[in-house]
């Protein structure tokens, strides 16, 4: 499938912002199953400096600074993305999760050592003790890794209420676990914490989800939003994506921007500013399928 992605973020300030340094991660990543053409980043007002680099995870980051007083910052990222189906292993054919855990701990080759990065605590992934019991219900003795992981994904989908506006970026996973509600970011963090608490490797994926309009209604432009899910690592197979918000294994409708240990490594926009007063944030994402072939 091929899509166009428009992602516009607007910050409106009550008072002028005199100076502002920012980093954005909005470039869909190149992967074996995802290609990209025509990426454009528009920043208004015109930035003093705009440059890009590849971070330690391989994601593209754009840095820009605004040095003239402004009351509004507008960032628009546009791209065309093509996604192919990727092979998904049969869950029950994957190795027992304890075997995977032991191989990760042994870290016997360079790849495993690199993957280890996603086994430890990170700023948003803490408190393994509290999540381990929750994870154990799915990860019974000798159960194949992916089979257990898919079960955990389903349980989060079933047992947690999807409740926008009840959590924020800084809501701790423990709160989410306690109140059994949150949004995609919270669910991704929760499942990552649960997997890592067992000694497994899991990473956070930032991206977009193509949403179908309700039956009989036209698709609304800007109705989409940025999405988050996770990946779990299985030796000899690689990384397998899981989406606890929708209880699916991501395929052609998940567009990947990048990945990291948690949200903090891949947040779409961050910045430090001087002045500004209260901020109003507006986000509009539009992912549209390009119907007929190229």
């Amino acid at each position, binding site marked *: 499938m091929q899509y166009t992605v428009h992602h516009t973020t607007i*910050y409106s300030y009550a008072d002028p912002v*005199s*100076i*502002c*340094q*920012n*980093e954005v991660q909005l470039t869909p990543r190149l992967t074996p199953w995802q290609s990209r053409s025509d990426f454009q980043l528009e920043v208004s007002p015109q930035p*003093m*400096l705009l440059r890009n*680099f*590849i*971070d*330690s*995870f391989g994601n593209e980051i754009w*840095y820009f*600074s605004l*040095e003239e007083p402004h009351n509004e910052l507008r960032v628009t990222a546009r791209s065309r993305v093509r996604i192919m189906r990727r092979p998904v292993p049969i869950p029950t054919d994957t190795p027992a999760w304890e075997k995977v855990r032991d191989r990760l701990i042994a*870290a016997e080759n*360079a790849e495993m*050592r*690199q993957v*280890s*990065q996603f*086994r*430890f*605590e990170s700023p948003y992934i803490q408190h393994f*003790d509290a999540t381990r019991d929750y994870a154990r219900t799915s990860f019974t003795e000798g159960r194949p890794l992916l089979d257990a992981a898919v079960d955990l994904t389903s349980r989060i989908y079933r047992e947690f209420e*999807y409740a*926008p506006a009840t959590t*924020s*970026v*800084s809501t701790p996973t423990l709160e989410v676990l306690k109140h059994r509600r949150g*949004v*995609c*970011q919270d669910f991704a963090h929760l499942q990552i914490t649960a997997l890592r608490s067992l000694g497994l490797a899991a990473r956070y994926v*930032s991206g977009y*989800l193509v*949403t*179908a309009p309700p039956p009989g209604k036209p698709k609304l432009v800007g*109705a*989409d*939003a*940025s*999405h*988050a899910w996770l990946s779990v690592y299985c030796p000899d197979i690689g990384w397998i994506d899981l989406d606890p*918000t*929708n209880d699916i294994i991501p395929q052609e409708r998940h567009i990947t921007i990048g990945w990291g240990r948690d*949200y903090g490594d891949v*947040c*779409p*926009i*961050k*910045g*430090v*500013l*001087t*002045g*500004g007063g209260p*901020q109003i*944030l507006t986000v509009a994402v539009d992912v549209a399928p390009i119907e007929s072939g190229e």
Partner: protein
Amino acid sequence: MARGAYRGVSDTMIDSTGAVSAHPSGGIASQYFPSPGHFDEMKGADGDVRPAWSRLVQSLNSEGEAGLTRRSEQTRHLLRENGVTYNVYGAAKDLERPWELDPIPLMLPISEWLPLADSIRQRARLLNTILADVYGRQELLRSGILPPSAFFEHPGYLLPCVGIEPPGGIFMHWYAAQLARDSSGRWIALGDRSQGPSGAGYAVENRIVVSRTLPEQFQSLNVVRLASFFIALQNTLANLSHQHRDNPRVVLLSPGPKSSRYFEDVYLARYLGYTLVEGGDLTVRGDGVYLKTLGGLLSVDVIFRRMGDGRCDPLELRPDSPQGIAGLTQVVRDGRVVVANAIGSGFLEAPMLQAFLPAACRFLLGEELKLPCAPTWWCGTPENLKYVESNLDRLVVRQAYRHHNVRVYVGSSLAYYDRAKLIADMRARPGQFVAQEPVIGSTSPVWNGDRFQSWHVTLRAFAVATDGDYQVMPGGLSRVATRSETLTESMAAGQRSKDVWVLAEGPVDSITLLRPKKTALELRRSSNDLPSRAADHLFWLGRMIERTEALVRHVRCIVARMTSELQPARLADLHQMVLAIDEPGESPLAGLDTAEESIWQSLVESVWSFLHDPYRRGGLFEAIESTHRTASIVRDRISVDGWRIINQLTFPPSSNATAPRTTADLACTLVPLDQLLTWLSAFSGLCNDSMTRGPGWRFLDIGRRIERALQTLRVIRGLLVDAQTEVLPRLEAMLEIADSSMTYRYRYLTTLQLAPVLDLVLADESNPRAVGFQLMALSEHVGSLARDESDMVRTSEQKIVLSAQASLRLADVESFCTVNGSGDRRQLDKFLSLLASDLRGLSDSISHTYLTHTVDSRQLEAQLQVIKRA
């Protein structure tokens, strides 16, 4: 290397059969008994004085106890005079402690030093190579030499810095190794400091003091000089400039006055000749880093940082670091500024790395590690964890990745519960713990007033990167303590410090840091790198100095009248004078009935509390404290002599803690008050005579002028507005407080009248104490500040001064003297109060226009990842 001052010195040992006797007979040193079981620095196992010490010991013996006592007093005196202190984290009050230095240096023969320096150089090369690898190719990770945990569980491994390559491949421009000896005398590394190690400034200060207290010994023993190290540091930093400018701008980035290292930040900035800045003084604009100065933004080439890694950039590193510089990492990535040491070099400070250095050395350098580490077990593997658990009694357990402000567990002294808890914690998170065999360290004599005691010793050694290698400071900072447990690897630990003398075999060169550069410097008439923040503090220093002086003059005038028969004063006048020491209506005595019998005692107590009570608002204590505090913040802008004066600004604490106080108690304060005034005058003299007329001086002087005018207005209002009693005694006091008695007598002989006094202290533009004079000076200052503005419109500061000046010049002093119906000079009071509020407005306006540049920055609101779920 041999690039230091002792180049060419041969490697031969100082022969123990050499010129000096190893058996100084008798004397105080013979009464030094090292604690058994340790390597002693001064005496060998046979009890003989080691050759390197023998000449020092001989000369100390010949001077005896009296000589040592004198030298140790001199040491304390010099340290106090130079204001050498260190701050202690966590202590809310009394942050500053005096620095303590033992008069006896630690002696190391060059034959022992050279191999040690060689092993420190190897270690520094290794550590730099490790940084290059972990932030570059990551071979140490790929090959499994370092466990993944060393990267990914390590909060000091900064992912945003991966891939950044600093100029010349130098990550670690300078470095400190913390060393101690084992019982055989072998030097062992306890830890590494790679982010901007502290201690080098104290090493210089120790050297300056000890070389002064032991001058003959310092000369005759061929002590290798430290300066070569700092010259190498200057060169290394100068060569980092991306444009290779001949005179690059290097700034020393300090976390600020609250940091435990602030004294040293200031000291090093001055010693190395760099501008001292805090994060708020720097800003990222475009692709560069700039220093915010009064004269505008100046581009910065090199940031010599003393700030922790994560604190440097709130955008890419720790978001909760308002003291950082947003965008700095990106500028570094672009190669437009160099940060020394490289951001991320704190990676090396993790105690767990000690366990992996020998293997890393073989892997990266193909060499054996020369300087051994204390035997270390990282608990992240099951075997190590098991070993540590079963040998806990003889190990010290610490955090694997943090060494600052964390608990260290001494296995043998753990209580039952603590031990069980530690083992449970280690099992739950084994990767977070590391265990080491404790290193007891050597012992050394420490002078304890009347005899030598045997204390434990650690040595902090420093190395600086030079042309592909490192150069080691010939000496270092030694810390000593009575118990070895208090000598952890931290700099602040230990009770005292020692200078470290490396003894060459022949004469050594003397070197100064002010040396001719290869090319001539461009001549400059002013230095325009005064950060706005520093100007702000100088302005307030001027105000506080002047306020202190005015209060001292005022209270001295009162005390003199209360305690002397020669200047008898009526109670009512005294009462007025005591009231006048505060702003009108703000005196604690304001509601007191003058008819009461207890009035005299109330006045005595009130003056007493003004002098001694630290909580008395507007009291002398508060004024002196504020002066000290403000001065310590801009210490780098005050000359060494000026700082010595600031240190003398003290008032002795109260000797009589309980009321009632008597006039005799008060009389005792006259001498210290006079002394205080002398020091304050000395400071003013120094500012006038020795400070270049740059922006720094200007803001200091603006502060002084505004405060002096305000203080004079306060006294006039307090003393001369009331007309209910005879004005004569108060006129006399007025002249005395305003230091204008001489001028008055010269002009008017002894006839005291209100109008001429008022004219002299208020309007006279030729009297340096009069309000008119201050306005004249201020008019010049604000004019000169405004000169850069091209337009002809007057600045608001100029308008304020002009209008105040006009109203004062036009004022009819004679008419101010008339008394109205209610028995006071209300017209005068109103005039003075308007003038005072003009001056306060001027102060605010100057702050607003020129000084206040510190606006808090904050984070952009985060974007939640949220979709509409079907």
